Structure formats: structure tokens, C-alpha cells
């Protein structure tokens, strides 16, 4: 144990000690000692060479989001580090446990505008949970231990460690006897039982209760507990964009997604409900619409591990700071043992559910939405792609879907049937176009036996598709890309159509022949222009032993509905384009 090591070797050993198995990155001058050392550890520590540091960051995020484990990305100083900024910000918004390791110029030239020097700790201060500049090799064991602990505990998030080149090169005898000194960091996992009992009282007296299940359910692994809670109380369950998979959509208590592109019956139910139990969601403005008009009749119970989320956007009657799983366990323990106590609630909940289902039948439920009359004359309405893909996913199982940002993302959330946690992976809080292709690389490495479907737009695809080369170099075969190619930055075009008099400023978009591009990357490329070709293309993608891209050239000007205009009440939903019937 007391052998001499270089700082770079210490970094590798610290990662291995903390269970890291794979890292995504690109080398360069200031991080070369670390690359030199990781060669010795390559049996335990796999390095995936990406084509852009942004890709490395999203790949690490994909790995983390698909597993709940730490994702690790690496860049050199200067531009290598700044290229990591977007995925770091993305991980911050979505609470993803991410460790970014960057090389830094030698300590004696710090602050002197040395070649490729950038103050990356300064730059990332507001977009990391914490960050470090390490100038001495002796500090590396402690800093890595603390950084990983912070990234993966409490509300997870990105942590950056910037290591000067001389600290990587110096030889030391590492001290692995580490005692964390974090007096200011004590995540509160266990709920206050008094608050839990208070919440139970409120729930038992409710006539129109709702559950909002957020990302916290998935991050804390509370899927079973949520199901037990819902079944015990018979309260309808809403799943947010990041809550997708927290509760199976075929469950009789599942009612779907809320918010800007949520279902009408869900938003209406929120506006009518009297008790709103939000567990692990943060009342994002894409969920609440204009926050002051959100759930006007509801007493709100909010469970979140981050105290600063409580009361931030919505007034809360019963705040509970806790891990979602431990909180739900506490509820299940504290519930009255006899079913009698639930009789009244069950009666109200069943009337309430009946009312919600009636609204659902009236206002664009999934099926009606898929068969919209105005798609009849289109040769390839996007919905036909989703219908066929959903069918394939359901019949074959073992899938993960990674979506990018835009119309195609919202259609995926709306139209695919979601059942399991960590099967729907997307950039929610930051809405980072270009997320999907590199993230899928991380997901595919984490789950080599699943088929990883990327659903992306022609815009986002053109931001980061170079990682297709990484996928080939790594021998990854279980990725299939569906480009929903509408020749527009579609979501922006939709806003222009609906709110800016169709002034399509900066949104029409051309691209290369995506299938040919795929072939150039040694992928199989397929072009689909008509609904009749969709199923066969998906079959071919499955039948191909290797990565496949399908370029779905869909109808160009189709919109995502329902839609709540930005900063409007979620009562004000647009259901179709004004110029269509």
C-alpha cells in the first residue's frame, strides 16, 4: 500500500477504488500523464476515445442515467475543458452523477495565460455541484474520494476536478486512509415522521388527490414503493418527463405526462385536484406553466432530497426533505394498518379517476392522436414512425430509448408506451440538442444486451453525429438511430407557426443524405419516405448485426399537441393548428 505512485496513477487507483469501470474522453498536453498512466490500468479501467469532448460528456451522462452509477469524462486543459461545459451544465440541470476530469497547465504557470490555460474551475463554478483545482499530488486521494462522494450522494450532480500537469507527474506515497471532512454537506435521507403523518392526514381527507412522480423516484430506486403507495391509496399517478418509467403506463392508475406537451386530462386534473403529492419532481416551469396559476385548489405535499427545491416554484403545505424511496417506505409504514381507514379515500379516488378517464376519452388520448384525420394525405406522418416503433419495442422488449431535444422528443414521450425505469433517457432541464447520439454510446456500453434506440431530429443529429465513428471503433452494435427528419428545427418552427405568424426565420434546415453519411461511418443506412416502408425498415434494423441509422423523411410541418404556450396557465391548451380543420 505504501508504494510510490505518480499523481496520475493515484487518479486511476482512486477511480478503481470507487468502482469506476469506464471513462470517456480525449487526450491532450495537460492530461497526457493521466493517459500515460491509464494504459497500465486498462484491464480494469476502460477508456473510450470520443470525437469531441461534448460527446464524451454526454456519453458519460448516458452511462450514468442508464445505471445510476457515476459517469466519468475527461478532457485536456483549455478547449478540451470548455468543450465539456455543455454536458456538465446538462448534468447539473438533470441531477446526473458525473465526474469531469480535466488537465490543467503546470502550477507554476497558472494564471499566466500559458498555452491552453483556461480557468475551468471558475467557468464551471455555477454549473457544478462542486469543483476542485488540485495542484499537489498528495491531495489527489482525498479530493477524488470527496468528489465522487459528493457527485453520487444526496441530490446527485456533476463534479469537476482540474489537475495541474505537475500534480499528475509528481511521485508520492499516497495516503488512502481517508476521512472525509464535509461539515457543510449532510444530505438528509430520512423523512421527518411528523411531517409524514401530517401528509397522510391530508391524503386521507382528499377528494381529488393526485401523485406526481418525478426523476427522484428513478434516481432513488423507488419504483416498487411508488407502486405500493399508489395501489394502497388508489390515487392516480402522473409521470413527468423525467418520471417516465417510474410507473408503468399500462397500470390502471397511470394517467400520463403533465405540462407544456402533457395530456389535456392530466393538466385539467391538476387544475382540479385538492391534494397534490409530488414526489421527486421539482415543479419545473415546463410542468407548471405559469406557476401562480398552477393547481389553484391543491394543498401540496412535496418530497425532495434538496431542501432548496421545496417552495421554490410552488407553495407547499407539507414539505418533506428526504430520499424518495425512504420517504415512500415511511409512508407505507405509517399508513393505518386497516383498510377501513382508506375506505372514504378509495371511494373518492374512484369517482375522481372516472372523471379523469372521461376527460381523457374526450380530449386527444394517445390513440386518437395517432389517427388524426389531417395526417391522411401525408406520405409519412411522424406518428406512423412512433406507432411502428412502439409496436417493435413492445414485442421485442429489452430496449432503451434515448431522445434528443425538439418535437421528436415530445412525440417520443407522448406516444411510446413506457413501463420501466431508465428506459427513457433524455436531456430535460437543459434541453441540450446533440445529446442523444453520444448519450446512446454510454447507454449501450452500460447495457450491452439491450437495443438502444436513438430518436433525434435532423437538427440535433447534425450537432454530434461524429460519435458514430466512436461507436464503430468500440465495436458497439446495439445502437439504432431513428432520425425524424422534417427539414426544420421543428420545435422552433412550431412556435413560429403558432405565435409568430409563420415567419420561419432561421429554421428551415438542409442536411447531407443521412443514410449515405451512415454508410460512410460503416453503419447501415436506410431511407424511409413512406408509411408503407416503416415497419420493414425497423425489422431490417433489428435484423442487422451492427449499428443502423434510419432516415425517416417525415411530413415537414406537423406540430406537437397538446401545447401550453410558454408562461400561460396549463388550463390554456392549444389542441391543433388554427389553419387546419
Amino acid at each position: 500500500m505504501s508504494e510510490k505512485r505518480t499523481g496520475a496513477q493515484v487518479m486511476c487507483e482512486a477511480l478503481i477504488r470507487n468502482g469506476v469501470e469506464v471513462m470517456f474522453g480525449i487526450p491532450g498536453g495537460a492530461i497526457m500523464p493521466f493517459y500515460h498512466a491509464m494504459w497500465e490500468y486498462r484491464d480494469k479501467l476502460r477508456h473510450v476515445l470520443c470525437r469531441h469532448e461534448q460527446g464524451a460528456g454526454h456519453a458519460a451522462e448516458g452511462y450514468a442515467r442508464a445505471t445510476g452509477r457515476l459517469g466519468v469524462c475527461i478532457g485536456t486543459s483549455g478547449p478540451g475543458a470548455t468543450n465539456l461545459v455543455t454536458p456538465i451544465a446538462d448534468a447539473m440541470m438533470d441531477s446526473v452523477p458525473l465526474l469531469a476530469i480535466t488537465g490543467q497547465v503546470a502550477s507554476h504557470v497558472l494564471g499566466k495565460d500559458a498555452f491552453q490555460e483556461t480557468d475551468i474551475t471558475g467557468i464551471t463554478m455555477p454549473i457544478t455541484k462542486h469543483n476542485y483545482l488540485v495542484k499537489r499530488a498528495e491531495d489527489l486521494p482525498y479530493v477524488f474520494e470527496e468528489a465522487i462522494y459528493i457527485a453520487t450522494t444526496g441530490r446527485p450532480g456533476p463534479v469537476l476536478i482540474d489537475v495541474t500537469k505537475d500534480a499528475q507527474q509528481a511521485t508520492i506515497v499516497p495516503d488512502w486512509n481517508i476521512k472525509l471532512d464535509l461539515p457543510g454537506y449532510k444530505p438528509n435521507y430520512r423523512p421527518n415522521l411528523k411531517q409524514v403523518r401530517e401528509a397522510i392526514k391530508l391524503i386521507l381527507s382528499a377528494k381529488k388527490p393526485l401523485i406526481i412522480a418525478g426523476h427522484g423516484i428513478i434516481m432513488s430506486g423507488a419504483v416498487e414503493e411508488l407502486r405500493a403507495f399508489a395501489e394502497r391509496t388508489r390515487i392516480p399517478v402522473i409521470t413527468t418527463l423525467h418520471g417516465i418509467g417510474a410507473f408503468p403506463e399500462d397500470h390502471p392508475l397511470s394517467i400520463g405526462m403533465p405540462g407544456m406537451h402533457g395530456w389535456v386530462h392530466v393538466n385539467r386534473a391538476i387544475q382540479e385536484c385538492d391534494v397534490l403529492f409530488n414526489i421527486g419532481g421539482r415543479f419545473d416551469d415546463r410542468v407548471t406553466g405559469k406557476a401562480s396559476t398552477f393547481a389553484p385548489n391543491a394543498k401540496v405535499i412535496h418530497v425532495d432530497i434538496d431542501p432548496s427545491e421545496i417552495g421554490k416554484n410552488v407553495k407547499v403545505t407539507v414539505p418533506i426533505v428526504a430520499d424518495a424511496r425512504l420517504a415512500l417506505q415511511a409512508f407505507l409504514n405509517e399508513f393505518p394498518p386497516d383498510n377501513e381507514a382508506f375506505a372514504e379515500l378509495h371511494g373518492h379516488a374512484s369517482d375522481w379517476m372516472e372523471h379523469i378517464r372521461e376527460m381523457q376519452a374526450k380530449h386527444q388520448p394517445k390513440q386518437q392522436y395517432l389517427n388524426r384525420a389531417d395526417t391522411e394525405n401525408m406520405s409519412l406522418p411522424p406518428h406512423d414512425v412512433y406507432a411502428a416503433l412502439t409496436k417493435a419495442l413492445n414485442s421485442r422488449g429489452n430496449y432503451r430509448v434515448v431522445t434528443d431535444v425538439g418535437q421528436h422528443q415530445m412525440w417520443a414521450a407522448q406516444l411510446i408506451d413506457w413501463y420501466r425505469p431508465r428506459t427513457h433517457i433524455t436531456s430535460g432541464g437543459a434541453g441540450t440538442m446533440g445529446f442523444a447520439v453520444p448519450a446512446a454510446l454510454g447507454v449501450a456500453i452500460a447495457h450491452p444486451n439491450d437495443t438502444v434506440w436513438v430518436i433525434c431530429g435532423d437538427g440535433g443529429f447534425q450537432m454530434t453525429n461524429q460519435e458514430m465513428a466512436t461507436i464503430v471503433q468500440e465495436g458497439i452494435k446495439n445502437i439504432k438511430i431513428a432520425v425524424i427528419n422534417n427539414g426544420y428545427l421543428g420545435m422552433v418552427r412550431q412556435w413560429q407557426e403558432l405565435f409568430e405568424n409563420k415567419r420561419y426565420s432561421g429554421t428551415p434546415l438542409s442536411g447531407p443524405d443521412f443514410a449515405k453519411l451512415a454508410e460512410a461511418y460503416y453503419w447501415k443506412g436506410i431511407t424511409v419516405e413512406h408509411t408503407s416502408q416503416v415497419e420493414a425498415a425497423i425489422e431490417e434494423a433489428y435484423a442487422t448485426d451492427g449499428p443502423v441509422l434510419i432516415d425517416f423523411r417525415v411530413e415537414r410541418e406537423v406540430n406537437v399537441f397538446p401545447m401550453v404556450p410558454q408562461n400561460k396557465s396549463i388550463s390554456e391548451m392549444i389542441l391543433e393548428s388554427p389553419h387546419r380543420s
Partner: protein
Amino acid sequence: MKKHTIVALVQDRPGVLSRVVGLIRRRGYNIESLAVGHSETPGVSRMTIVVEWEDVEQVVKQLYRLIEVLKVSDVTNDPIVEREMALMKLHAPPSKRPEIVALTEVFDAKIVDVGANTMVIEMTGSPAKVQNFVDVIRPYGIKEMMRTGRIAMVRGARGHNAEEYVENANGHAERVPVMN
């Protein structure tokens, strides 16, 4: 908007001041004054921040998200002792000196330097008293002034001793495994 006085205990680590300031800057608030220095406990610094805030509770919660922050409280409505110090270099030709000396005596200020045509005065007191003194002395001609910004302490037994936070810090906090 109301002015608030916030007292924060923070671990003394590189970057901590940047983090605290960045968090306030992010919301576009202007810091009226900020004083940082050692607390009674080694390794812990104490800050007094004065700022006009709408939603102080949120900002306090946000400050708690910073890893090095041990304790934050809004002491605006608490019984507190507040002090500020100012150094002022005055235009003080010999003819004006008797008046200036008289005023410093009334305000309990100190004359710490006398030059040919200048005097440096040290004034310590409650922020209101310091302000009063500045207003009274300004007509004589202030050539330079530096105010420290206020520091605050709650009266009586209640307060912000840092030791308890540091003592509880040993070892790892609970780690709840993810089960999926």
C-alpha cells in the same frame, strides 16, 4: 425590496468566497456590503452579507447547497450588534482642525494620522452612527474613504458558534445505495 443582513459560517477553502458571491450574482442582485474573516473556530470563516433581496428564504436555501456552507441565517429581525469601521482622509487645513477634533470627540471617532493639510480618522460604530458621522464630516472634504461593510452578531446566548458543525463532521455521512 428590503435590506437583509445575512450571517454565514463557511469552511475556509479556496474558492468559497467566489461561490457565495456567484450565487448572489446569478440572480442579478447587488451586494451592498460583504465582510469576511476568521471565526472563533480554526478553519471556519464568517461572513456578513448585506443585500436587498426579495426571496431571502430561497437564497438562504441556495447558499446551503454550497458544500462549504455550514450555517446561514437571516438576522435582519434578530436582536443583533452590528458594527462597521470607516477610515476617512479629510481635507484638514490647520484652520479647520479644531472643529474636526470636536466632532470626532462627539462621535467617539479617533484621529489616527495628521499631515500638513490632511487628517485620517477612524470611525467605528453601528452602521447608522458611521453614516451619521460621514454625513456630518463630508462638508469638510473627504479625500478618501474606505468602509469595511457591516459585521453582525446576535446578542445573548443564541448565535453562530462554528465548533458544533465542525465536530459533527467526522467520517462519512450516510450513503443510501441506489437499487435498480
